[in-house]
């Protein structure tokens, strides 16, 4: 029993650390990637004992700065809610990560330890629920700030997130129809199979349209450019107008966490999670014949690495997107959500249904 708790605790700590470090790292990636895209150099001055490391210490410097900044709340704001909002945002996004499997279950000291904090049996619903709850952080922040720009930002955010939630949900329905389970570990395992004998049975190949809708709606959920209506820094500043220091940092951090969560979910649901193509428990079995034996520990390492690489890729993709496109106009945003993504989601469900029925 004690061991179970300990294992869970260790997994929580590892997951959280991984997520947070990745988020921190992502702030650096965001800066560096955008810089490289734009023929710039990017932040490279933060140094520890003269060691610059391409500005890798920048996130830490930022974090320290945020921590030491004055904790400020406007006079007319509602203090408690003002504090609560970033915490809520952060919490609901961070908590999503508990359901994501990092790798296949490992066998250690006679125990089967799933590389996943909790293996919820309705994890997909849990993830959707947690992501939806994140809206509260935004709403509360806008309300608590007692600032009309913040309020406008938060209401925009609420409208946007709820709208895209629909598309997000619809895109997953097809997946649920295809996959036999809602359990994320089950979904990942299911994706270990092959279609047509050679193609990994990844969600993206089964549900290409579903993936497109999911990823686009997911990006809208992260509230980042080109979907940054709630923030709109060049027009209304947004729901965190009245936030500074650590609280602002939390919001920022939440943004990056959302990127990671979206990448992790996209990986898990559509790109086979920790699955490496043609890699089974015993090693690679290539569809064109032949196999490669791999030690079990190496399999686990490869799987965790595969998961990370996939997550990285999606993070990179999102950053690329964010630095490529300009912001939507609000009506375009709503049009895109309701007139493009939602119908596509429905079409996807219908098509999936037809195909399943036809088979």
């Amino acid at each position: 029993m004690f061991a179970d708790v300990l294992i869970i605790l260790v997994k929580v700590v590892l997951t959280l650390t991984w997520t947070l470090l990745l988020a921190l790292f992502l702030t650096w990636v965001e800066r560096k990637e955008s810089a490289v895209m734009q023929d710039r150099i990017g932040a490279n001055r933060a140094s520890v004992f003269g060691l610059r490391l391409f500005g890798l210490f920048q996130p830490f410097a930022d974090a320290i700065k945020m921590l030491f900044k004055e904790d400020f709340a406007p006079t007319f704001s509602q203090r408690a809610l003002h504090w609560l909002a970033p915490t809520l945002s952060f919490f609901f996004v961070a908590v999503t990560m508990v359901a994501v499997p990092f790798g296949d279950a490992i066998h250690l000291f006679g125990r089967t330890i799933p590389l996943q904090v909790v293996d919820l049996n309705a994890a997909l619903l849990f993830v959707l629920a947690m992501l939806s709850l994140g809206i509260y952080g935004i709403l509360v922040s806008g309300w608590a700030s007692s600032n009309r720009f913040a309020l406008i930002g938060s209401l925009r955010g609420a409208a946007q997130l709820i709208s895209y939630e629909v598309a997000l949900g619809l895109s997953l329905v097809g997946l649920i129809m295809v996959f036999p389970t809602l359990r994320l570990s089950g979904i990942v395992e299911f994706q270990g199979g092959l279609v047509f004998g050679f193609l990994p049975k990844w969600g993206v190949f089964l549900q290409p349209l579903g993936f497109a809708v999911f990823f686009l709606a997911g990006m809208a959920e992260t509230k980042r450019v080109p979907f940054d209506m709630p923030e709109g820094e060049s027009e209304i500043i947004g729901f965190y107008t009245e936030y500074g220091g650590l609280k602002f940092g939390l919001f920022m951090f939440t943004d990056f966490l959302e990127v990671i969560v979206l990448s992790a979910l996209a990986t898990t649901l559509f790109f086979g999670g920790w699955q490496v193509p043609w890699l089974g428990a015993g090693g690679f079995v290539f569809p064109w014949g032949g196999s490669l034996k791999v030690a079990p520990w190496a399999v686990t390492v490869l799987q965790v690495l595969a998961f990370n690489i996939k997550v990285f890729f999606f993070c990179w993709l999102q950053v690329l997107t964010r630095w490529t496109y300009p912001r939507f106009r609000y009506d375009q945003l709503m049009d895109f959500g309701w007139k493009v993504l939602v119908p596509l989601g429905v079409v996807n469900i219908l098509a999936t249904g037809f195909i399943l029925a036809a088979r």
Partner: protein
Amino acid sequence: MLKGWLVLRELLRGAAITGRHFFANMTFHTLKLFGIRAKRRGAVTIQYPEERKALSPRHRSLHRLRAREDGKPSCVACMLCVTVCPSECLSVEAAEDDDPEIQKTPARFVVDLNRCCFCGFCVEACPVDAIRMDTGEIRLAASTRAGLEISLDKR
């Protein structure tokens, strides 16, 4: 529908451009890191305090008064610069010069950089080509407002 596809096409083109830049630059950065093709710049950023961009000869920087051969400013305090200055930042007081060929010389020639908008009108207005904005001095900062009121005749 067509419009939708066009948009999609443009979106993909945009991503292709940024992506191309990313990969190209990333390659160069990486190569440079390993000392290969180190001369090729991957980025246009100038590392400001250590590196300086060369100023264009037409660049308008801090004003100066040209000097006569004997070191006195060649300004004759005609106040045309004062007249033309749109931000009213120039303040000139004239004094008598002993040389009857010069007669008029500035006793005070102050430019208030707090107000100056570096339009260069003063340079264009000057009938004796006394004021110029070619010092190349662009790092103009002071901790007080008075510190930015610069006497050009005393420099």
